[in-house]
């Protein structure tokens, strides 16, 4: 419904952009006509550019590496002839630009090459490992939003009270600990002392969802608390500010109930900055999944990447990095779209970025 408001508010901003947008002067009329389409196109261009740059960074890492397939597969016994033969087999004797283009070209089609060590296609290995991380990360994000959201709302309502101070204290403490320490604390409490949850292992979600939850809840909780703290802090700050705004006071004066004002008016405006925090937290969650995976012995992407890194198996390592980057970009895109749908102001900012 916010989409309908956009055309009315857009022209004023296009007339006086707060930031000197380089292309604003060139196409002012077109922007006024199709602001939504324009912001969509610019988001798309940015996303594609970021993905391309990520692939360049990833490929560059492989290019400057001095490991080669012969060393990975044959070890010390590799002769120069072996090195040349395997280099030719994996196409490493071609110019770098050709290698990059063929790598990206294949990657777009879902083919990340073969492992130098086992010659198993990288995509297959990742396909096996990725659902573990994705399900853990998704559950962690959900927990973070639930825990952080309720803590933030509660703190804002008891502004300055006991609960507010408690939330602030817990958030500050959580921010000073690496996520795996939180995970260790959870293991000590729930697995060692109470012995109610397993300290490691994994059951795929499609096999037995309940069993999966039993194994996934501790890793997800460990992963989520850090992000929950940032969400709570941001939500509290923006809600305390919004509650004092005229529209909130006015709505209450007109006789709307407190919960109606809170959830219908204030939360909607406070959600924008919080969504931005969630967007920034996505790389943290995905990167943190790697650590909790190791901590709880889950068979995910991290184990794959770590094992491959130890063997110098470059295609697998690059494949995992690129896949992670794509996952993060896609998730950020979803957050971005949500933010735009929620808040016309964010949509205007997006056009100027």
């Amino acid at each position, binding site marked *: 419904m916010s989409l309908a408001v956009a055309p009315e508010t857009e022209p004023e901003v296009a007339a006086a952009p707060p*930031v000197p947008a*380089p*292309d604003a002067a060139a196409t002012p009329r077109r922007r006024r006509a199709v602001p939504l389409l324009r912001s969509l196109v610019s988001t798309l261009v*940015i996303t594609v*550019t*970021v993905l391309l*740059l*990520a692939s360049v*960074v990833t490929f560059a*890492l*492989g290019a*400057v*590496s001095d*490991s080669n397939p012969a060393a990975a597969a044959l070890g010390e016994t590799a002769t120069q002839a072996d090195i040349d033969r395997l280099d030719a087999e994996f196409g490493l004797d071609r110019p770098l630009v050709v290698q990059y283009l063929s790598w990206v070209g294949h990657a777009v089609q879902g083919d990340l090459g073969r492992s130098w060590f086992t010659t198993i296609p990288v995509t297959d290995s990742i396909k096996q490992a990725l659902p573990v991380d994705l399900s853990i990360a998704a559950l962690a994000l959900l927990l973070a939003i639930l825990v952080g959201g309720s803590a933030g709302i509660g703190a804002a309502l008891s502004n300055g009270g006991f609960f507010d101070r408690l939330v602030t204290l817990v958030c*500050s*403490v959580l*921010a*000073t*600990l*690496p*996520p*795996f*320490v939180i995970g*260790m*604390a959870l*293991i*000590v409490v729930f697995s*060692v*002392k109470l012995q109610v949850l397993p*300290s490691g292992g994994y059951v795929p979600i499609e096999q037995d969802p309940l069993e999966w939850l039993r194994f996934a809840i501790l890793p997800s909780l460990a992963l989520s608390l850090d992000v929950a703290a940032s969400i709570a802090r941001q939500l509290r700050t923006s809600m305390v500010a919004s509650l004092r705004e005229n529209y909130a006071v006015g709505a209450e004066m007109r006789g709307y109930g407190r919960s109606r004002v809170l959830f219908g008016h204030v939360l909607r405006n406070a959600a924008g900055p919080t969504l931005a925090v969630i967007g*920034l937290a*996505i*790389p*943290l969650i*995905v*990167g*943190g999944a*790697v*650590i909790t995976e*190791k*901590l709880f012995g889950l068979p995910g*992407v*991290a184990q794959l*990447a*770590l094992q*491959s*890194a*130890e063997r*110098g198996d*470059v295609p697998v*390592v*690059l494949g*995992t*990095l690129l896949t*992670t*980057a794509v996952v*993060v*970009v896609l998730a*950020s895109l979803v957050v971005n779209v949500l933010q735009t749908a929620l808040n016309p102001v964010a949509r205007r900012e997006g056009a100027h*970025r």
Partner: protein
Amino acid sequence: MTTLRNLWAVPTARFALVVLAAVALLALFGEALAPHDPLRQYTDRVLEGPSADHLLGTDYVGRDVLSRLMTGTRLSVVGAAEAVLIGGALGIPTGLASAWLGPRLEWLTLRVSDTLVILPFTVFAIAVAGTLGNGLQQAMFAIGVLISPIFFRVTRAVALGLRRQQYVEAAELMGASQWWTLRKHIWSKVLPNVAVTAAQATGAALLVVASLSFLGLGVSPPAPTWGGMLASDLDYLAQQPWAPVYPGLLMMATVGSLNLLADAVREATGDAPRRRRKRRSPSASPSAGPSAAAPVNARKENADA
């Protein structure tokens, strides 16, 4: 100097400075002060609790925990500092430059920073270890590169805001070279922001370094680090559930102090002129006419001080 005295007046900042000074002392002299050799294995006293000659107990091969903590401070802290230095060296010049570059190059630098932001620390560090080799320098390089966007954004935001200030425009109109403007006007405003960012980034880097040593990246095992100690404690949680508390507390104190200090610096340098501006502008704007005059004056004074 004034900034430091202002900081000392804030109780939290004083606490943070004391803790950080203690950590710095440990980083410098921890090895010499340690009561035992951090690598010596007292094999008959494995996994012991605190006692008179091992104040914090011993670990799974009988090494003295207190000595390992004290000796490990240097590698943990120096590693984080190195990563932040690399990040600053990459991020600050590019951030300043992007405020002056043409729109196309500016767009590209922004996208590069976007790209570095989306790469998760751990996965990138694993990839760097897999391609460039596993070592402290490679790990710090990886963290430094991924930290640089923070510096880039902060520097760029400040520089962009200042470029349109009237006194900067005036200086440029009067023929000041870009280099002179940069040094005289921009840098003094960028520096406090960079200091705040650096303090926060060091805290974040400490946590990432710890996470990486937990994964076995960076520092090789026998050498003690906080993260490495936590990682080795994991296998013996059933026997020694309290063991992670010591390195965890030390890390909490350090990172927490860095965060407190960052907040205090921000308040000491950032909020003061804004408060002054708010008090002045109501009286100044009706009489002086141009409403922009008051904030500019306030900022000017702050830059001179």
